[in-house]
Each structure stands twice: as C-alpha cells, then as structure tokens.
C-alpha cells in the first residue's frame, strides 16, 4: 500500500495550480449547495491528511482518530460557550491537550510493545472510552448534546467563526493547503525520511541509528495535533456535538477511507480520496433523490465497495494510478 510518493510533472503542477485558482474564485459563481459539498470535501481531505501522517508516513494504524476530533471539538466549544473564548484562542488549548492525549496513548502503546493490529484496537478502545465518558459528562451536557449559539448568517465574524458558508469554505480550503504544505515539508525533511524508514522496516531503521520510539511518538503527536483543528472546525461549523456521533467508530473509519482510496502515504492521496468519495456520495444521493428513494446506508455501502475495490485492484490508491495515466506524475515516479 502507498509507497513511493508521486512527484508532479510540469503538467501536474500546472493542473494543481489551476485547480487552486479555480477553488479560490469559485464562491463568486457557485451556490451554497456546492460550497457545502466542497467544505465537506476539504474537511475530509484535511483530517484524512492528518491521519495519513500517522499511517501513511509512519505506519501506525489508528482506528480511533475520532477521539481527537471530539476532544478538540468539545474543548473549543465549551471554552466558547462557558467562557466566551473564541475558537482560534481555544485552539491554543485544544491542540496541546489533544497532543498530550495522543502522547499518552502513544507512550502506553510503544512502551508496552502494543503494535500493529493490537495498537489499532487500543485506539478504538480509547475512542470508545471517550464516547461513553462524554455521554455521562455533565459539563458538556452528556448525551443530550452540546449546542453552540448559531449566529446571524449575514454577519461574518472570522474571529468567532460565525457566518456564511463562504467563510467556512475559505477557512477549510486554507487549512487543507496549509496541511499539504506542512506535510510536504515534513516528508522531505529528516523526520520524513525517518518516518518512511520506520514504516518500511522498523528493525532495519533501528540498525541505521533511528530512535524509532521517538519518531513514532512524533508522528502520533503531530497527527493528533493536526486533527484537533478539524475538531474545532467541526464544532463551529455544525454547531452541535453529540458524543454518540463525534466519537463513534464509524466516524473514525469514515475519515480513513479517503486517504486509503486516494493513496496511503502520498501527499495528494487524501485530497483525491476526499474529492472522489464525497463526489460519488453526492452523485448517489442525487440519483436516489431523483428516483424518490431514501436508502440510509447506501452511501456507506458505496464507500465499502470503493474501499474493497481499491484494496484488491489498486493497492497503491487511486491517485498514483491516475497520475501516471494522465501524465501528471514526475518522470521516474
């Protein structure tokens, strides 16, 4: 799965630049519906990228990433509702806290030699812990749900993240771009090389002098911290939080499907995956609506089938295959 990253050929770079420009000017002529779909795509591209850091780069499978989304979401929400602290300031608390939680899980797992599938199950356990725990937590209103005051649609308050879809659109677009740039810098740095080495063969990495514990912890912590922003966005965009939903294992799985289908370990994989999946899902919804049929669960079946298809037929992911086919890949990759 997902090895060798795909460098972009000149054609590919031009295409990416063009796409970026298009996305920037899109709100001028696109309706709210398209914007909300794209916001969803960017959200999944962003958290998918955050997860990709841990799995695609460092090879640690986390199936409980919803834990970080939920923690950060609830933290920033409570800070806003109870103390009037805006989301951006709230992040200054939420990100470190989430990173610490990630560090604790990572430490427990690595110190006690919990790896591979067992590690994945451990991450599930922690997310479930949070789900049940928050269900009983008074300060967040437990299973009753936490609601943010919905502000006026017209006034755009960037500081408090209250406003029209357009604002959220740009915030999430910017976040996705920043995440991509950050990941690229990481990948090409010493840290990135060490992560890839650990992913490929941990014992050989150790023999080359790499302190695998330190770098695996680094990946876990960076991934958690990145995901925290996604959590904050979720809280302030949807304006309601329920433990059953935000910590649920289906959420954790939902956010990993994009990067896997797009291309694990590649830079653009999560983005391509998010576009593909959400695009397919919306098309499916449109078709079903046109037929007058309401099939809850159809979207997930589609996701499952896509995942199955990619695992069986395109193990490197759609993006590497697509890039090579369309001549977007750098020569030699």
């Amino acid at each position, binding site marked *: *799965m997902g090895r060798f990253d795909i460098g972009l050929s000149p054609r590919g770079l031009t295409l990416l630049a063009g796409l970026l420009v298009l996305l920037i000017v899109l709100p001028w002529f696109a309706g709210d519906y398209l914007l909300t779909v794209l916001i969803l795509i960017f959200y999944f591209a962003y958290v998918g990228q955050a997860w990709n850091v841990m*799995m695609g780069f460092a*090879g640690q*499978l986390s199936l409980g990433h919803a834990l970080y989304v939920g923690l950060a979401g609830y933290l920033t929400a409570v800070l806003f509702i109870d103390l009037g602290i805006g989301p951006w300031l709230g992040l200054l608390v939420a990100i470190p806290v989430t990173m610490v939680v990630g560090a604790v899980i990572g430490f*427990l797992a690595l110190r*006690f*030699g*919990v790896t*591979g*599938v*067992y590690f*994945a*199950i*451990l991450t*599930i*356990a*922690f997310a*479930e*812990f949070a789900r*049940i*725990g928050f*269900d*009983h937590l008074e300060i967040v209103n437990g299973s009753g749900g936490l609601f943010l005051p919905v502000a006026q649609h017209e006034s755009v308050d960037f500081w408090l993240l209250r406003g029209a879809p357009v604002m959220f659109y740009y915030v999430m677009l910017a976040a996705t771009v920043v995440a991509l740039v950050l990941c690229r810098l990481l990948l090409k740095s010493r840290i990135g090389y060490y992560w890839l080495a650990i992913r490929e063969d941990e014992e050989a990495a150790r023999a080359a002098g790499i302190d695998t514990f330190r770098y695996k912890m680094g990946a876990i912590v960076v991934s958690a911290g990145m995901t925290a922003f996604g959590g904050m966005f979720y809280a302030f965009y949807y304006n309601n939080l329920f433990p059953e939903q935000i910590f649920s*294992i*289906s959420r954790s*799985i939902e956010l990993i499907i994009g990067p*896997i289908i797009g291309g694990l370990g590649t830079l653009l994989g999560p983005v391509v995956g998010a576009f593909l999946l959400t695009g397919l899902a919306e098309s499916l919804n449109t078709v079903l609506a046109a037929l007058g049929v309401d*099939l*809850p*669960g*159809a979207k*997930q*079946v589609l*996701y*499952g*089938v896509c*995942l*199955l298809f990619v*695992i*069986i037929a395109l*193990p490197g992911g759609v993006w590497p295959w697509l890039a090579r086919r369309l001549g977007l890949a750098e020569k030699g990759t």
Partner: protein
Amino acid sequence: MPAEIYLNVAVSGILTGLVYGLMALGLSVIFGVVRVVNFAHGEMMTVAMYLAVVCFSAFGLDPMIMLIPIAAVLFVLGYLLQKGVINAFVTGPESTQFLLMIAIAIIIVNVLLIIFGPDARGVQTSYAYDSFAVGPLLIDATKAYAAGASIVVAAALYAFFRFTLIGTAIRAAADNHTGALVVGLNVQHLYAVTFGLGAACVGAAGTMLILLIDVTPALGPAYTLLAFIIVITGGLGSMPGALLGGVLIGLTEAMAGLVFTPSAKSMFGFGILVLVLLFRPQGILGRKT
C-alpha cells in the same frame, strides 16, 4: 441488595457470557489458523441473527431448530469469502487484511441497514418468559438453552480439531504453513474450511443470541469489538481462552450493569482490554509468540 440478586445477575451474566464465548471462539479459530484478523466478525453474527429473525417471522421456525442450518449457511459464506477474496491477502501486510475486513464489515452493516432498517428486530418464542428455579436462583429458560447449545457447539468444534483428519490437517497448517504445503496439504482449502468454521461458530452464536437480545445493524460493530475484547483477554488463538474470556466479560458486564449504571458497563470491558493489552498481551490463556 439481597445476595440473591447478585447471584442471579452473576449467573445470568455467565450464561450470556458462554454465548459471547462461542462468538469469540470463531474469531480465535480464524486468527489462530489463518492469521486473519476478522474485523467483520460481529457483522457476520448479525447476518445470522437476521436470518434467524426471518426464519422465525416468515416460517415460524424456532432459532433452536435453525441453529444447525444457519450455522451451515454461515459456514458456506465464510468458506467462499476466504477462498474467493481473503486468500489473496493472507501473505500480505496485516494492515491490508485488516482494512479488507473493515471494508467487508462496512458493506455488511449497511446492506443490512438497507434491507431491514434501523429498528430492532427480535424473536418472541413461546418459552421466552419461562425460567427454571434452582435453589435461590431463577434462571431464564432462553439463557439456559442458549448457553447449553453454545457449550455443545464449542465441544463439537474441539472434537473436530482434535479427532478428525481434516482437523489435524488444519492444526498442522496453522503450525507451519510451508511445511503443510510441502507435505501436500491443500492449504488454501484448509484455510477456507477454517474460516467457514469460524463463521459457523458465529452463526450458531448469533442464532442463540437472538433469543436473548434484539438485533439492529449497529450491533455488528459493537459485537466485533466485544469479540476482540474477549479474545484478547482470554488469549488470541486459545480456544478455551475464548470461552473463558466470554464468561469473564459476560460476568463483569452483568455485575457492572448492576452496581453502576447500565450504560457504563461496556467501559469495563474496554478497561479490561486496555489493561490486558498493556500488561499481558497474550491474554490469560494465550501463549507468548
């Protein structure tokens, strides 16, 4: 609270735990032999549960009668799944297999959701409210039957592996894949049979569980998780461990539900899981690899 209540709840927990144990047994067998982590285990059980519901509501067939047929259907499904899809990935990286099973799990859950809807479905047998009085205990008939059937199925599985030729062949293949190939065993077929058997266990467990619990599509992932907790606690790859783990989890769940709030009872399961993973990853009866 009077002691009888604790006792009754404990016994009830143990009996339910035996059914859980049978479900986990299937997972353990699959992992122990084929080395595949079946993340769709609970989902496969819900398939069996829904089959039992349909047989009962459409044809009036009691789950106890349908135990063997449904287990057989699940056997075939498991066999085909292993031979057709999973086998290609047995030698690959374990994360790929895991993700493959996750994909299958997602598909099963949501297909069931489409077919049956999200509402709970159950089975109301004529003996649903019967109970046996044994000294101070009042034991539900359904729980007793379910637990009894689970023990019988587990024993049958044990006998199969111990005393039949094909069972021995499977154990050989589990011990040494290459060695088995070298002596001419059709390992692919044996793996498929094993997966089928694991599925049959889960099918039997599901057919019994429907007597105790109503089924919804969301039950699948919840029971997959439970199966993992049981198997890891009891010892991955250990058959008695799976049953022991099941009883343990059934007991703690029941007692926790009694002493604390019912909704927090699964937290205990997770607590045990974390402790086991950290301090005794091979489980109670497992062997250190």
